[in-house]
């Protein structure tokens, strides 16, 4: 917010959305599918970034919010036969409610304790999914049939298994969340969140109830991450317990670090970068995770603020 130029900022973000829209029509099928996945998961990264980047709260349990959305949407479709829009709302509601409860408990701690507490809650959530295998499908997961993944609006029906519909579905969610986070971090509330990250004690002495503000941020972050999970279940038709495992708590952290914490576009760039590095390297070696690891180490050494963070620092100070 060094230079207040809302027009330029919004133009950039809408430009990114339009670029993604155009890419749908020129990309080969394989990359179209990959991009749909990346956009859905970038929403997860954006939700994580809201809490980690802007408020400075490092959670190691965000897989539970993602999978609350995943299962909230997936199970209502699978068991109750709900439609796609209702399932999406159910997924987000599950994630937001879970985030409220976890936030009330975990925000009694901070720093390392907050990391451990969130990680432990996420493990409980993961084990519960395995325990209630009769409903969740346990470690096998559940496949949501094509017939359940059709949205009928008016007389037109959209089949989410169609690559272009799926791409546009992911893009729609991505765009909405991108613009919401942009508006959020530019708002007065966003300024308070950054102030809490920079100096919580001082923020309190300016009359702010920092715990209440952090709780709102946790719920917003949880709701966004669960929207990503719900969309993932509905777009790709699979609900599985591996999405609740510790790996999916660490991945958004890596994506955000890579792309640039506390930047609005960083989560997309980080997710994109990581997906393609994995994709390209796994083509010629089975040790692709090694290369991913080396790439991360190089990044932390030479660009600790991530890709967008470094761009902001060196060239574009106005980036939000």
């Amino acid at each position: 917010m060094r230079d207040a130029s809302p027009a330029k900022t919004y133009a950039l973000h809408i430009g990114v959305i339009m670029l993604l829209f155009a890419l749908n029509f020129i990309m080969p099928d394989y990359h179209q599918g990959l991009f749909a996945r990346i956009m859905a998961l970038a929403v997860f990264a954006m939700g994580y970034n809201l809490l980690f980047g802007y408020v400075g709260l490092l959670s190691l349990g965000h897989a539970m919010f993602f999978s609350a959305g995943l299962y909230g949407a997936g199970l209502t479709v699978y068991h109750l036969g709900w439609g796609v829009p209702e399932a999406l709302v159910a997924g987000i509601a599950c994630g937001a409610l879970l985030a409220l409860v976890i936030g009330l408990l975990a925000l009694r701690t901070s720093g390392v304790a907050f990391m451990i507490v969130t990680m432990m809650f996420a493990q409980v959530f993961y084990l519960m999914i395995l325990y209630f295998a009769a409903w969740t499908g346990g470690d096998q997961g559940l496949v949501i049939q094509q017939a359940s993944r059709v949205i009928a609006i008016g007389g037109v029906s959209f089949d989410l298994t169609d690559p272009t519909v799926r791409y546009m579905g992911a893009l729609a969610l991505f765009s909405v969340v991108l613009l919401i986070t942009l508006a959020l971090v530019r708002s007065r509330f966003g300024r308070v969140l950054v102030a809490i990250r920079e100096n919580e004690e001082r923020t309190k002495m300016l009359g702010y109830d920092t715990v209440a503000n952090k709780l709102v941020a946790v719920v917003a972050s949880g709701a966004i991450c669960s929207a990503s999970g719900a969309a993932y279940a509905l777009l790709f038709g699979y609900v599985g317990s591996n999405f609740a495992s510790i790996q999916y708590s660490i991945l958004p952290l890596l994506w955000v670090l890579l792309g640039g914490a506390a930047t609005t576009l960083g989560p997309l760039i980080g997710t994109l970068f990581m997906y393609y590095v994995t994709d390209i390297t796994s083509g010629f070696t089975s040790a692709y995770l090694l290369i991913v690891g080396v790439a991360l180490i190089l990044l932390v050494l030479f660009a600790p603020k991530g890709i967008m963070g470094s761009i902001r620092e060196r060239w574009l100070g106005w980036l939000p």
Partner: protein
Amino acid sequence: MTPLLTTKGLSRQFGGLRAVDGVDFALMPGEIRAVIGPNGAGKTTFVSLLSGRIRPSSGAVVFDGVDITAMPAYQRVRLGVAYTFQITSVFANLTVFDNVALPVQRTLTDGRTKGQVRTGVMAALERTGLADRAGTLAAHLSYGHQRLLEVAMGLALKPRLLILDEPTQGLADSEIDNFIALVRGIARDATVLLIEHNMPVVMGLADRITVFNSGKILAEGTPGEIRANGEVQDAYLGATHG
């Protein structure tokens, strides 16, 4: 006239140390009160108890007729008790504008400031002479300007009681004169309580002076009375007499 702030038997122990020990204190609305005393006398602990940064071991704090002893710090700020830190504690990675926008947008919601954030911020920056630095990162300000920014943030809270903890520490003499004028201006619509070591500042500004020693109030009076007080000279001013 009823006091704006009173304390009764206010005490705070750290282990075996009684940092503040049974202090009865009263502050009248509109006055500039200086708190002085040797290092370790309990001055900062005392004002921290007033602002709510730390909780008392016993005793009570009453602000404008309301018992605020158990009230968290952020709520006291909303009542109008503002505290500026002894160690400069501005948001280094935010701009000067954003630093002041935080208290301004806070007071907008409870109605103590009218209008837009920008108007309120620029008013506070004009008063402290920082208006032309609004876009600078706070970390890039000189130390003296950071102290002024700290005061601007306090001002922007529209406090009824502004507590300044060693505001002139580290300022150059030329800056101190401006500072005295600034505090006089603030005192036109707020009560000021300042901890200060710089004696010319204390004598020039304060209506009354409270002298702390070993966690207790040793003396209280006008600058003239304090200057003439033999006990104070022994404890603090260090003059050997007699």
